[in-house]
């Protein structure tokens, strides 16, 4: 579904991604794990066309994605739930959700989709009229995910959804991700929370210093000596 081929990218003169390749199949749940500064968020931002590639290609459903401008990405069926939520803090929950469905089909089905995400996140329904900036971290993350779902995507990308959340809330967010996956969405997630995400995903890639160094089924990687040493502290 999504193929990232030999991508080199970075900010100005600083190259962050070195020859990164990976793919996400239809209905798969794929995780990219890696330490701080490994380039995880940059990968997300390159897929969303917010960071330009210096070489390589990104394909989505057999279309070149790296030549699409940033604000058109969502129309291809990709939702990006960015790092640190990036909500519109001075707008209400409902307004944030509406902004997730500005284009085409998503706009026509806005009402139904809002009902659906309220079903997934009952907490948001209770807080409909509240300003996004005044909610707790967990609620904000839920809203960020809900806003992503509003575009009726086929692929949804989560960038460190557990950032700044308590272990309990983190579990809750991962449970929701699994639920969304079971509803037929393809998921690409970036996480530092290696142990938990490897346990719930189908496949994972390990990123180090902007390079993909390992690939495998989530559960296999959990047993991998290198992963254990580097991330799990065993």
């Amino acid at each position, binding site marked *: 579904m999504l193929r990232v081929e030999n991508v080199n990218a970075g900010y100005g003169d600083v190259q962050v991604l070195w020859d990164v390749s990976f793919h996400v199949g239809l209905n798969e749940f794929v995780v990219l794990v890696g330490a701080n500064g490994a380039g995880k968020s940059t990968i997300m931002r390159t897929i*969303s066309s*917010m960071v330009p590639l210096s070489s390589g290609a990104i394909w989505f459903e057999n279309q070149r994605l790296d030549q699409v401008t*940033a*604000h*058109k*990405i*969502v*129309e291809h069926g990709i939702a*990006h739930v*960015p790092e640190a939520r*990036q*909500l*519109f*803090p*001075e*707008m209400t929950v409902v*307004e944030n959700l*509406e*902004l*997730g469905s*500005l*284009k085409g089909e998503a*706009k026509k089905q806005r009402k139904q989709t809002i009902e659906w995400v309220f079903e997934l996140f009952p907490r948001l329904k209770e807080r409909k009229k509240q300003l996004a900036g005044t909610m707790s971290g967990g609620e904000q993350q839920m809203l960020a995910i809900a*806003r992503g779902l509003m*575009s009726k995507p086929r692929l949804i990308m989560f960038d460190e959804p557990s950032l700044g959340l308590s272990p309990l809330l983190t579990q809750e967010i991962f449970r929701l991700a699994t639920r969304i996956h079971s509803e037929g969405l393809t998921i690409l997630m970036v996480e530092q929370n290696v142990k938990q995400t490897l346990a719930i995903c189908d496949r994972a890639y390990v990123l180090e210093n902007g390079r993909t160094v390992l690939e495998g089924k989530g559960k296999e990687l959990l047993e991998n000596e290198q992963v254990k040493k580097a991330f799990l502290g065993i």
Partner: protein
Amino acid sequence: MEMFIQMLVAGILIGGIYALIGLGMTLIMGVMRIINLAHGQLMMVAMYITYVLYFYLGIDPYFALLVAMPALFLLGVAIQKYFLNPLLKIDSIIPQNQILMTVGVGIVLTETIRFIFRSDYKSVKTSYSSATFMIGNISWNVPMFVAFGLAVALTAGLFIFLLKTDAGKSVRATAQNKDAAMIMGINADWITQLTYGLGAAMAAAGGTLLLPIYYLFPDVGSQFTLKAFIITVLGGMGSTVGAIVGGIVLGIAETLGATYISMDLKDAFGMVIFVVVLVFMPGGLKELTKV
């Protein structure tokens, strides 16, 4: 006391028009994070459009709104598209070089108008320019009253646009978080053009409404750029509600100051308030209104 109420009324009426001008600048400030130093000059261009329509075609200034506002909207969109947005693509030592560009745009507008119309003072004297009516012992100037009413209507229209429509929400979203707005599929380039266009159209409305009670010359723009700037700071940068309150406060301060202290110092009172607010309430009236 009667005198005081009379002046208060006059201050509020003129403040409503100031608010309109200030709102335009605040909108641009909120989305692009720049002070639009060509704001008064855009307003001046609209005033000349209104003047031409009145003088040569006999069109009433209030109907001229229907021409001046769309014309300035288009001019604003073009300025943003061809002069301001290209600057964003360049890394420069001064990150705010867009502001410098607005200064340049303002000068070009002023001098172009001076070239066409010369520097003479002009005014639009309609049949109702000095008409008044009385409510109790307070006299109301008809054109100011009509201008205030239209200013309120336009402000309400702007708020409905910003609060209720997808395009308006996209403008607010871009102001609050540009990256997230792009992820949502909002074309940030177009939103900046739309915003600058709207800001220019609001300034145009202010200028056109002011014309029957004011006078006109090419340099009239700079004093209104200053007023708009004061209103924006008074209201708290980027706060729309603050801009309305700021505009009315400025209107009242000028009128009361001119009456009780000195007519010559009219424009100084705005600056005094400006300094006082900066010292005691650096966040502007936004600190009180919270929006």
